[in-house]
């Protein structure tokens, strides 16, 4: 494990060193790919929660915060300063006075208030609502009980006061494009969908649905000298094999790699150097429903963790394109516990635990899965004989991914396999297991544990960051012991990047989401 951390770290170091050693070149075209579907859902980024859409949105829009991959945390973007008062609940932001929308108008506090209020329109179910809900009074707007968010106050054009409902770092809530700031006078118009206006380093040129989005440099972007490139083209390329040919043919600058391509690229001396990888903040697991009698017993859940040869599956089936999970918090989480060891493969111990729990002959359960190659049917198929060895029989129930999400949220399962966001904020990631978190929100295993609740509650109340970290690490260790899930892996995101594209950031929240103003292409790029 330490070796893998070292590899990730050295890769990051190598990339940053390369970027620093060369002077960024102005001009050229960056050709990125959007690999997660056949099209972009919408040019209104507030309406869509697909990672696919955020790829172009990172160029077009800006949020109050931005993810800084080098620091591994969100940092202020549209504000220069954040003053915290009232026991950590009130944040006063000094906003930038040099941020211009692509229609030439300067951004003010009104635009932020308008954007957040729009996102809280409950009848539209904007996905960013789950973040804005942290502002006092936002939930009332969502439920139609109020028109304005009481926790947002404009002090002047460039000063905004925000009162939160909990003592959290607002950066983790306001850095994604789902909470992008729109121009208040334009964002509500129908024409906005055809020609979106943002604050990002590139402005909209065209959207060819199902094919591409083209953006060009916004000269009034607030970061001096940036962006470097003249143009960005984001092509929709859902088929991995087609992406592979286009990448080898030098028609695209980035390509997300699946397990099979990961192996092929590693074996190819011409392509090996193009690979960048990072442990993303997603944990893959098999969730167990405590309402199903055998899974109510901790020993049964632990037995399942012992019965599965997880390393074998990761190495052979996932082709090494994943990091072994120990507990819930992933490798790139600031609170990842390096001393913790994953459950070893020990069928004898699994059998003993099953016998202790009253299931010496095992039992049968239904496992709901999608077809996903990394956390779906192929994995389930590989696990079945391992569980069979300790007497546990599995009945597979295959559903579509959209259906799986619904099944999980309604609790209509005995076990399921899934990939769930487990960062970047460790506090909110672990809070999913708090008994007060509804199953439909993210407590999918309906986990209830008094000791765990206490640790999470205490971590939310303390002002001491070190103590908070300790409490959350204890909570993570408690999860390991309680084993509400089979801890499978943390996603290893892998992307191939052409040698002429510089400044790629190892973003653990989603590798394809790049702060594009920092990217540049050298003179060897075939795209002029």
């Amino acid at each position: 494990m330490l070796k893998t951390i070292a590899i990730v770290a050295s890769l990051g170091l190598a990339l940053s060193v390369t970027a620093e050693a060369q002077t960024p070149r102005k001009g050229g075209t960056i050709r990125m790919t959007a690999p997660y579907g056949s099209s972009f859902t919408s040019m209104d980024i507030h309406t869509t929660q697909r990672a696919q859409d955020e790829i172009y949105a990172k160029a077009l829009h800006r949020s109050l915060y931005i993810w800084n991959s080098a620091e591994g945390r969100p940092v202020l973007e549209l504000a220069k300063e954040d003053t915290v008062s009232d026991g950590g609940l009130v944040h006063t932001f000094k906003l930038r006075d040099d941020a211009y929308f692509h229609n030439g108008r300067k951004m003010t506090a009104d635009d932020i208030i308008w954007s957040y209020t729009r996102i809280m329109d409950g009848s539209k179910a904007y996905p960013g609502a789950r973040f804005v809900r942290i502002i006092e009074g936002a939930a009332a707007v969502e439920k139609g009980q109020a028109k304005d968010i009481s926790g947002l106050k404009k002090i002047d054009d460039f000063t905004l006061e925000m009162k939160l409902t909990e003592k959290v770092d607002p950066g983790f809530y306001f850095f994604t494009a789902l909470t992008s700031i729109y121009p208040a006078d334009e964002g509500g118009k129908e024409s906005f969908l055809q020609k979106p206006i943002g604050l990002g380093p590139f402005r909209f040129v065209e959207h060819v649905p199902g094919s591409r989005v083209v953006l060009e440099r916004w000269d009034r972007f607030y970061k001096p000298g940036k962006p470097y490139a003249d143009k960005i083209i984001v092509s929709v390329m859902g088929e991995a094999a087609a992406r592979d040919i286009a990448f080898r043919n030098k028609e695209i600058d980035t390509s997300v790699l699946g397990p099979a391509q990961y192996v092929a690229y590693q074996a190819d001396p011409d392509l090996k150097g193009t690979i960048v990888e990072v442990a993303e903040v997603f944990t893959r697991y098999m969730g167990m429903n405590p309402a199903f009698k055998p899974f109510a017993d901790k020993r049964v859940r632990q037995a399942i963790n012992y019965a599965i040869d997880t390393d074998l599956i990761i190495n052979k089936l996932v082709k090494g394109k994943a990091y072994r999970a120990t507990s819930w918090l992933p490798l790139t989480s600031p609170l990842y516990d390096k001393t913790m060891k994953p459950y070893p493969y020990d069928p004898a111990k699994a059998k003993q635990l099953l016998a202790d729990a009253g299931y010496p002959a095992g039992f049968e359960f239904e496992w709901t899965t999608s077809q996903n190659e990394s956390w779906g049917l192929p994995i389930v198929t590989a696990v079945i004989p391992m569980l069979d060895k300790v007497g546990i029989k599995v009945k597979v129930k295959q559903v579509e991914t959209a259906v799986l999400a619904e099944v999980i949220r309604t609790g209509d399962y005995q076990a399921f396999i899934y990939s769930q966001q487990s960062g970047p904020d460790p506090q909110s990631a672990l809070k999913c297991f708090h008994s007060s978190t509804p199953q439909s929100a993210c407590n999918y295993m309906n986990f209830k544990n008094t000791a765990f609740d206490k640790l999470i509650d205490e971590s939310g109340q303390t002002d001491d960051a070190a103590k908070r970290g300790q409490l959350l690490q204890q909570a993570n260790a408690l999860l390991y012991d309680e084993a509400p899930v089979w801890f499978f892996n943390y996603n290893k995101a892998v992307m191939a990047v052409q040698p002429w594209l510089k400044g790629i950031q190892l973003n653990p929240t989603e590798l394809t989401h790049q702060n594009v103003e920092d990217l540049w292409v050298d003179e060897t790029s075939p795209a002029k």
Partner: protein
Amino acid sequence: MLSFLIRRILQTIPTVLAVVLLVFALFSVVPGSIVSTMSDDGDPQVEARMKTQLGLDQPVYVRFGSYIANLATGDFGTSFRTREPVTTMIAKRTGPTLQLIFAAMAFAIVIGVPLGFISALRPGSIVDTAAMVVAVSGLSMAKFWLGLLLMYLFALKLGWLPSFGYGDGGLKYLILPAMTLGVSPMALLARTTRAAVLEIMTADFVRTARSKGMSETRVVKWHVTRNALVLILTTTGLQFGALMGQAVVVEKLFSWPGIGSLLVDSVLQRDIPAVQGSILVVVLFFLAVNLLIDLLYGVIDPRIRYA
């Protein structure tokens, strides 16, 4: 002819209604609702507001009735996901899909029909065998795999064409997807043409023409071709309509901005109005092409009446 046309158009109405009803009914029973996929924490109050906003709080028959009423005015509804009118979404994508289908069909006709003729005129020859091997291969090859092969050859190895994308909509971007889509109807046309020509070549009227001293070229041109055209046209019409559905795979593979990718994403995201609109356009296209073919029969063979 006019009464025939009106009658045929009226006949399409029950077909369209049946398709709309089927799609509506299917999406009412399949698991996975738009509300639960959009609402992040399943708050009942928020979900109730969403249902009202999307009209999903109404019984199915009420929703179906209002959908049909809107359809009659040309309103396909508003996308649940993007909040855009479905007609706008479809309008953006119809052009590229039609461009692709017409190019694929042109490829199929230009290659397939002559190939079928040549094979039939020299049955059992090397040319015939080779042509039929090509035809059978074309029919049995998966489009996805064929597309990748063409990309590999013409883009990566030869460097003649771009491997993906729409570019400016120009010919060089169209060739590979059109070839991929067109190979299967090309193969079918080649086989159909061969079979039709072989059958006609042994017909009494062809023997009579030969016995009267008519040259082989004239026999083929005036008797065989004309009679074979009816069957070729029927196959062409059916393939034209079917290509609309088959284009889904090719559009996705080549990042071509057509209705196919809209349909796939809309199904996955349970965007019912967008799915219904896309399917409706595919069905209307299929019916329109077949109507056109029916009309063309009369032009090719005056014995066929529009009674």
